[in-house]
């Protein structure tokens, strides 16, 4: 409920603030699934993958194919989408990125290659599935009853799923990074490639697994995004700059930073739209990113250098 103050501004009520907090947890989890993969690839390869958003779209449409076109249970989408998008990401390593690295490509060359890949993927998706907005064949109007009766808050079942699945997957990634050989190799490569390789890290193998993980995470993110709202071909591209914002706010290259950045951006967006028009949501994310680049260019937890 909104009450107009005497000065003309609307003053949000407690329940609105609580609802905004809840929404930002859900949104933040989806952002994080996308942001962690993007930041891992940057960390290991020093590559800003402009095709990452379109990989999210691919995940969302794999879910659409399973759920709507083949009429199979949605649960299957959560298993197949990460496999398909993970495989796609790995294939880009072999077809595009490894050959390009061998040519000693510079920054602009890598950025434009990623842009080209993003265009091909996005418009291949649009070619196959058309340009319209589509919805999964699921009932996402159902809400969690006790939340509504006890707290007066709206939490859709699929929002709850996004929140829980997001947290579970991200904790698993955290454990993978901290406890496994692969995680150690990834962290070693993102700190110092030469040192890591001379210490016996198999960099090509680690890079392939980084792509697989990055694709799988963003694939799940795509299905969750489509399940909680809808799916259209430019979905991921439209989200990409917001995901960059999450990554940069957290400090590029840092997985935990991306996690923190995702919730920071999601909270800022959900709270600020209580005052400014909702259509400015993405703009809020960009503005926060630009402010962070100005005052703390390495982000909350970053080690990478954003400044010359």
């Amino acid at each position, binding site marked *: 409920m909104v009450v107009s103050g005497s000065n003309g501004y609307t003053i949000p009520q407690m329940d609105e603030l609580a609802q905004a907090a809840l929404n930002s947890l859900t949104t933040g989890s989806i952002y994080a699934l996308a942001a962690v993969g993007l930041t891992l690839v940057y960390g290991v390869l020093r590559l800003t993958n402009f095709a990452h958003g379109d990989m999210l779209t691919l995940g969302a449409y794999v879910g659409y194919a399973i759920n709507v076109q083949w009429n199979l249970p949605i649960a299957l989408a959560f298993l197949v989408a990460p496999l398909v998008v993970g495989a796609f990401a790995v294939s880009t390593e072999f077809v595009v990125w490894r050959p*390009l690295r061998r040519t000693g490509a510079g920054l602009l060359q890598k950025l434009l290659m990623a842009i080209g890949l993003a265009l091909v993927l996005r418009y291949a998706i649009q070619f196959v599935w058309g340009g319209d907005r589509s919805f999964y064949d699921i009932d996402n109007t159902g809400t969690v009853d006790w939340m509504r009766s006890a707290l007066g808050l709206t939490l859709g079942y699929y929002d709850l799923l996004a929140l829980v699945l997001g947290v579970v997957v991200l904790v698993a990634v955290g454990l993978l990074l901290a406890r496994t050989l692969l995680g150690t190799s990834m962290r070693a490569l993102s700190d110092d490639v030469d040192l890591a390789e001379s210490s016996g890290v198999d960099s090509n193998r680690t890079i392939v697994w980084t792509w697989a993980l990055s694709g799988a995470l963003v694939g799940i993110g795509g299905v969750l995004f489509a399940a909680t709202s809808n799916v259209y071909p430019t979905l991921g591209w439209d989200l990409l700059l917001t995901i960059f914002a999450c990554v940069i706010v957290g400090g590029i290259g840092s997985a935990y930073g991306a996690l923190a950045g995702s919730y920071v951006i999601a909270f800022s967006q959900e709270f600020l739209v209580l005052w400014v028009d909702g259509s400015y949501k993405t703009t809020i994310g960009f503005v926060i990113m630009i402010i962070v680049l100005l005052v703390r260019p390495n982000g909350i937890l970053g080690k990478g250098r954003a400044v010359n």
Partner: protein
Amino acid sequence: MELLAEIGPWGAALTVAGIYAIFAIGLQVQVGHGGVDNFGQVAFFLIGAYASAILIERHDAGLVVGTLAAMAIAAVAAVIVSIPALRLRGDFLAISVLAFGEILRNVAINERELTNGSAGIDSLEFRVTFVRELRRTLREDGIEIDRVAPLLILTWIIVVVVALASWLLLRTPWGRVLRAVREDDAAVRALGKNAFAYKAQAMAIGAAWGALAGVLYSWHQVHFSPTSFEPIVTFTGFIIIIAAGLGSIWGTVLMAVLVQGVLIQGSRYIDTPLTNAQEASLRYMLIGVALMLMMRFRPQGLFGSREELAAADE
């Protein structure tokens, strides 16, 4: 003069190609010579189209004053953006200027009082008032010209002027210092030159050309909306300057005709069994594939040298 009586669809395609040539020459100054990876050039294109349409249609600024004012606004905006952005390293600079363009597009969608939102805005003065007067006057002298001929001719006169001005400017000592900044800005700073100022000036000049292209685009379209200012416009410009070879001004003009005129506009007139939407998707996939193949096999472009590309990377 019979040539100008019936121009048909290719006249429109060539007009758009000329508009892209001006847009891409701006990018060439910024990226090819200044070494600034401006992924947000479409922002200045947007400023040119909207600022001139608002000034000319609503405030009766006149075609010339409206155009010059739009270019000045874009140049000032470029300097303001440069202050934070030029401090950032390559990827971050590219992401922030891309975000700047998207912020402006969001503003154009949402600030309905100023821009009329997603419904779009008219830019009638040139096509309706000016061209109608011109054709009437010429008809009295017994000369018939096509409706699209005046803008086609005007655009290509401007292409030549912009290309010549940029080419001459880049041959001056200013141009040489700019390229020196691109290669090693520490060395240039050590010589007492303000490296930031040179890059910001390159941004401002490129932005003014981008805005001029935007003004012509608004006249070509007569009515336009925020969907015309998506980042793809910038990347089409990048394809043009990479194909031309970074640094090459005249190559940029030629590639703008090939890429925009033939590949993108011209391909609309080829009949295929696909739907229009599918053809549009294929066209964008083609742009993507062309960009990828160029990056992989010929990053120095068709006429450029590898050194220019490597230098622009620093």
